[in-house]
């Protein structure tokens, strides 16, 4: 793809959360969560980029940092050439609002991301009202158009979130994101907490909307089969770092990193606490607070050797567009 097709360019993005313990007087920093550690990637206009990895590897935090919902610790994010992190930090209100509108997040959990005291019509209209996108007398029509687009009926507008099933709730979440005509959507495990039987519907809805509105997606997921189905390229993350990325076919069939291999072989199991599935590998996930040095996967990697715990492997090119960070690759 040519250079001008890049819509979002992330360079060396970092996000550390400090762990603070309270002292008798004041408080002391006792550790650093390496939630996002030197992440680099480009997203091309109109594509769907997959972001996969175990729970806690920093997928959501990557999205939240890019969207300015939490301040970045370092790095650069360019959206159509505009420096997003600068705008979040010290841009004017108009600038911020402009990018609040263009980039949207579809939240991970539709059970917690809808205000229980708001009827659907207010949830969905809030966006275009705040951004002043429609005249008052057209607001109703606009509301019904959006509901229609996500497969909801007009009478749903008067209802409250708790009156809907998980799938319908996620439609409402999508409607809220669409209400401001975005260009770019981070879809954070949009189907993970849903019943298996309705996941396909929601994914189809999302791909239909993408085609219709020319949207660009970053699709965050545990569910590798859906990643394979809708993504053009995939990033694999482990403990805040990228370990491998490339075209979907290469990642699934010619993976080089041992962590990617482990993901491919793992079977998702239902997680009773979080009402969704998660990937379970062998061994303990090391803490993201002061994570292991060298290759972060060395504590669990079957192919690990001495070098792995000492030196961090650099990104190596497997073939065009396919890179991995491993000293002793799979193939």
């Amino acid at each position, binding site marked *: 793809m040519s250079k001008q097709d890049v819509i979002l360019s992330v360079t060396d993005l970092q996000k550390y959360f400090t762990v603070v313990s309270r002292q008798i007087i004041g408080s002391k920093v006792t550790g650093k969560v390496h939630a996002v550690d030197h992440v680099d990637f480009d997203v091309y206009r109109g594509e769907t980029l997959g972001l996969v990895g175990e729970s806690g590897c920093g997928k959501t935090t990557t999205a939240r940092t890019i*969207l300015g*919902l939490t301040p970045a610790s370092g790095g650069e994010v360019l959206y159509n050439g505009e420096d997003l992190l600068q705008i979040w930090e010290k841009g004017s209100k108009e600038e*911020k*609002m402009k990018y*609040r*509108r263009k980039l*949207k*997040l579809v*939240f991970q*959990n539709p059970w*917690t*991301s*809808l*205000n*229980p*005291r*708001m009827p659907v019509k*207010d949830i969905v209209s*809030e*966006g275009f009202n*705040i*951004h002043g996108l429609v005249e008052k007398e057209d607001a*109703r*029509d606009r509301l*019904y158009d959006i509901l*229609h687009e996500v497969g909801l*009926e*007009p*009478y749903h*507008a*008067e209802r*409250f979130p*708790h009156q809907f099933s998980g799938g319908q709730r996620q439609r409402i*979440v999508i409607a*809220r994101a669409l209400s*401001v005509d975005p260009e770019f959507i981070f879809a954070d495990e949009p189907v993970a907490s849903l019943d298996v039987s309705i996941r396909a519907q929601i994914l189809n809805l999302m791909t239909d909307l993408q085609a219709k509105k020319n949207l660009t997606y970053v699709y965050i997921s545990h569910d590798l089969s859906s990643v394979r189905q809708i993504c053009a390229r995939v990033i694999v993350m482990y403990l805040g770092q990228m370990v491998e990325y490339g075209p979907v076919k290469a990642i699934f069939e010619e993976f080089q990193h041992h962590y990617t291999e482990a993901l491919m072989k793992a079977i998702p199991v239902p997680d009773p606490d979080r009402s969704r599935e998660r990937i379970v590998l062998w061994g303990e996930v090391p803490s993201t607070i002061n994570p292991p040095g060298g290759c972060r996967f060395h504590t669990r990697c079957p192919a690990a050797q001495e070098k792995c715990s000492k030196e961090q492997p650099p990104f190596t090119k497997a073939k065009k567009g396919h890179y991995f960070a491993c000293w002793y690759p799979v193939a």
Partner: protein
Amino acid sequence: MGETDRVSDLERRELLEEEVETRGASQWQLVWRRFKKNRTALFGAGILLVIVFMGVSAPFLTFMGVLPDPNSTIFLIDPPELGGGSRALPSIFHPLGTDKLGRDVLSRIFWGAQTALIVGIVAMLLSTIIALAVGGLAGYFGGRVDAGLMMVTDVFLVMPVFLIMLLMIKILSIFVVAGFGLWIVITVLGIFGWPQMARMIRAEFFKLKNLDYVEAARELGASNRRIMLRHILPNALGPIIVVFTLGIAYNILAEAGLSFLGFGDASIPSWGWMINMALEIVSVQPWLVLYPAFMIFFTVLAFNLMGDGLADALDPRLWR
């Protein structure tokens, strides 16, 4: 954009219009449907209804001559066959008798209901506004704003509030024209009644501001003001209502207490004043204490019983 689009638009319009017709009442119907399932709350509401009726009807009943003027001591010189005189026993003319000054007790009980409700509710509204501002901003913004506002709150919490209220009433009374004494009491109760509620609201805001749907609102571009008023406040409504009703009850007791101590407004019929006066003659006519005490007890009870039920009823998650 073909013909089909237009047709479906029309269909949707129709559906919309049907919806609008059924809507108006329906949300309140849902609230009521939920509220009436709660027996105790319903009982509280029943008592309150009677008291509100007494308070509201007092001026009308007096105007129409059904009740005598609550401040008129004319009965003092009424001949005994009309039930007159001070400390008269219950009679057809004065169903509850008259007090030390020969005023009609029943009429004063009715008018006292009005005083109690006005004091309780208006003072609590004032307290709630302060508590929302202080607690809401502290909880939402955290950090220094929080530290500063909570320090002020703590100062109010450790002050000997009741003594200061007495002092303030005395001082303010110098400047205020007679007849407005009640408003001094209301203002003072309102100004001192917020710290507990502010702490509670702060805790709620603190908890709610980190929830996903609040982040979603921020992500949408909502202003802080909008987030606080539309996303956090409605979800903190339950505990606020409970504390609000408890506060009304407290204010009614406090007004009675202030009046009892002689710090109320003697020109306005109040249950607290009635107890104050009746106590002077309690050895002769002990029942004169009982009427206002009974009213205070039931009013406070009614508000306490209603709080929980009201908080539940206003929660859409519990509507069926």
